[in-house]
């Protein structure tokens, strides 16, 4: 497993990113802009699940409107995230925060596209208010953990 990470870090593309003084910083900065869009499109649905936000609209309508932006910002996050990983692959392998981030990311993605999706797109009133709120809270918690661990990679590794 470790060898695989070492290989990635030695790819010419990875090394080129590392040797440039501006590619990594710019990619990192655009990763954060994408994060803003991602957080917004997730939060609109989560706030609605909590009975806040666009509470005059049905949940399914808010989720439907947020969906293209959720997908687009996820793509932007991956596009700006992968080069960062490539250039630092050996460091990431050793970073506990990178592992935590990836675990929370998998959890957050599964939650978003299974449980949250079912609850958000179901006919109004099929699930109780408390359950709906819980689904929104879990989503916020999972995605927050992804962002927190992502930021911590740069500090303690």
């Amino acid at each position, binding site marked *: 497993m470790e060898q695989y990470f070492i290989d990635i870090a030695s790819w010419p593309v990875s090394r080129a990113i590392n040797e440039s*003084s*501006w590619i990594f*910083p*710019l990619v*990192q*900065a*655009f990763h*954060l*802009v994408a*994060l*803003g*869009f*991602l*957080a*917004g*499109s*997730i*939060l*609109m649905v989560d*706030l609605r699940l909590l009975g*806040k*936000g*666009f*509470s*005059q*609209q049905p949940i399914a*309508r*808010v989720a*439907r*409107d*947020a969906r*293209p*932006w959720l997908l687009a910002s996820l793509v932007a996050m991956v596009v700006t995230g992968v080069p960062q990983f490539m250039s630092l692959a050996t460091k990431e392998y050793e970073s506990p925060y990178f592992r935590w981030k990836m675990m929370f990311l998998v959890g957050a993605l599964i939650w978003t596209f299974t449980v949250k999706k079912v609850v958000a797109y179901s006919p109004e009133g099929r699930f109780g208010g408390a359950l709906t709120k819980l689904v929104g809270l879990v989503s916020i918690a999972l995605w*927050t953990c992804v*962002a*927190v661990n992502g*930021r*911590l990679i740069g*500090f*303690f590794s």
Partner: protein
Amino acid sequence: MIHIALGDYFAPLLNLANYVSELPTSVQLRESQYVMPWVFVLHVISMCMFAGTILMMDLRLLGVGHMQTPFSQVQRRLFPWQMFAMVFSSATGLALVWGNPLNYVANIIFWVKMLAMAVAGLNALAFHFITEYTLVDWDSGQTPPSAAKLAGWLSIFLWANVILSGRLIPYAITWFRS
């Protein structure tokens, strides 16, 4: 490089930064091994909430997002979250500057960020005092007028600039070493 461009006008600001950096709270913040990283973490989380709620409103202004919700509702329902997040961001941002004032006060990218924030604020005010009067005409419509789209584009551009320059502040030292 800021001090070269601004010359004498910069001196009072530098004195203030020097003064703050010697205050016990500033020294404690700077020397704390764990507090500072967590302030950075909280600054990013508050950014998520702030940028998230602002950018989604901008998409509605452009006519490309949340089109099934009237703009007035988007604006009214997101406003408290935007304000809460702004206070949260400002508090964590202030703590970052307080702990390391000399890192920021002479950093050109930091001032680009501050300028972008100020212009973004003016853009929001201009929208509020000019374009918003026409809101009744297009509140639920699918194509907001050009003035609304302009406000949306400017907001996205300026806040993206704030995020970009914010993240790039630490790189100014390697990029613009004179």
